[in-house]
């Protein structure tokens, strides 16, 4: 170890002082884009006529492996938009604390009412914020972009006789 070595080392440090940065700071504001099928928190949607799509059939409640969905069905009534008689959902709660994001409730929904969202994370300061009530679920519809999957698309994709479903499905190139 001579004096020239020390100066060489100082030289390296000095050069690195003015080198452009190779690391990027952690992005705080923007979020990375998620895949089309990415699934996280839930939303209830309105159908094409503007009615609440959920008919209160309790299929999601039955299939949920964690038993976190509670649906209360309402009486049958005529829709104000179409005039047809149909079932309504009186109350819907989903406890996101115990959700394992298995997508089974989305698959079994006959009305395509429940969908999952492509938001990355939704933390809360209180456990009650993770308890999704009906109001929160309908508010989520406008909050973020929905995931690709809904009940009929998932069913169409898995149908033994059927061709591959539209929207993100289908045989790729190469």
């Amino acid at each position, binding site marked *: 170890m001579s004096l020239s070595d020390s100066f060489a080392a100082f030289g390296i440090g000095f050069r690195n002082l003015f080198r452009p940065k190779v690391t990027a700071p952690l992005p705080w504001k923007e979020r990375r884009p998620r895949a089309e099928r990415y699934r996280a928190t839930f939303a209830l949607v309105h159908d094409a006529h503007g009615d609440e799509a959920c008919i209160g059939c309790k299929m999601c409640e039955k299939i949920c492996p964690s038993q976190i969905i509670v649906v209360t069905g309402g009486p049958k009534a005529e829709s104000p938009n179409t005039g047809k008689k149909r079932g309504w959902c009186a109350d819907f709660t989903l406890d996101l604390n115990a959700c394992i994001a298995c997508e089974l409730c989305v698959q079994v929904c006959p009305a395509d009412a429940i969908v999952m969202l492509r938001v990355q994370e939704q933390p809360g300061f209180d456990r009650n914020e993770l308890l999704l009530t009906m109001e929160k679920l309908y508010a989520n519809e406008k909050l973020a972009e929905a995931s*690709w999957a809904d009940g009929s698309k998932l069913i169409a994709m898995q149908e033994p006789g059927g061709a591959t479903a539209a929207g993100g499905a289908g045989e790729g190139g190469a």
Partner: protein
Amino acid sequence: MAVSAAPAVSSSLATRWTEVGGVRVPVELVTPGWPDPHMDLSTYDPEADLMALNMGPQHPSTHGVLRVKVWLDGETVVKAIPYVGYLHRGVEKLCEKLTYVQITPIVDKNDYVSPMMNELAVNMAFEAALGVEPPPRAQVLRTILAEIQRIASHLISVGTWGLDMGGAIGGGATVFLYCMRERELILDLFEELTGGRFHYNTHTVGGNRHDLPAGWDRKAIEVLDRIVARSEEYERFLVDNPICHQRARGIAVIDPLLAMECGASGPILRGSGVDFDLRRDAPYAAYDQVELRVPVRTEGDALARALVRIDELRESARVAKLLLQGVPEGPICALKPVKLPGAVKLQEGEQVYVGIESPRGELGTWLLANTDRKLGPHPYRLKIRPPSLHALSLLPYLCPGHTLSDVVVIIGSLDPILGEVDR
């Protein structure tokens, strides 16, 4: 277990072979006696002043919540007993309350480094009991997913083992971070296919739930090429690193007979020179369509097991690429899509065992079917045979005679996943 011809990828050591019980094993590894795991410590040298030490359950290098009680003479281990059960969640009991379609997302959490394998194992058991054969497209899809998942799992295994052996000082942190970087590419692939980054729920009884999105196969081949190119680097990090050599070469040499006695399988067995792989010897899914070269090494030590994993990783990438080039057209599920919890019905008393080759060895599922009016069709008993539990049973035999710091290397080389051990 079939006796096969010379192993496809053999190590450079010239090895003489012997045959025990129909299995070809290297002569060098067969030792006359094994250490006694139930050693009576009162007969040990009274001058020695033994010290009992609990490693874990919160020790960072026991890969989870494994507790190993070691008795030390100075720094040398005299006796070591692993205690498991700190991560018991009662998955098997829970499965007895759920119907068949609800079990898949639950068993995802068993082996939390390769969830795809857990799904595949239980669903293959249900299909075998039901007598359903998934369509060819689903078979190929499952094989591709399993192989890509195997790569991700081995990346974690090799990376964390590097961390165990030296951390930042020995260059282990470099391997770890590089492996994690590559694994992220695979998670992105799975996110695009299934929507979940880690707990996929993509297998179902009779096939798969998600079809390939457009362009996925091209992306997958790109990722696999990149990982194979970089895997040379990991091997260089391990093999060309003198610290790694000093710490892992000749440590915990496993007698193949002992390994078979304890029920170990997977890379542990193949690192000890036993040429056994369920993918080749009892092909399931689409493994009969590809010719699998099974890497076998004859050193039997900790380094050999890591190198077997790296070789396997390359082989998996080769097989996955081969299958990705010719995915057959057609449906992805043989049964009607699930719309009810009781969609899959099995005969009461139906019994089946199915074993698949997970990254850690033979992952078995034993199922006894049941049905009742209230719960619907559900398993009376679903027993999961985790490869990691059997690997851990080797620990009392391996540790005596080594130093305490070697215990960390030994646990890392066995690659146990405690979520799977305790279930």
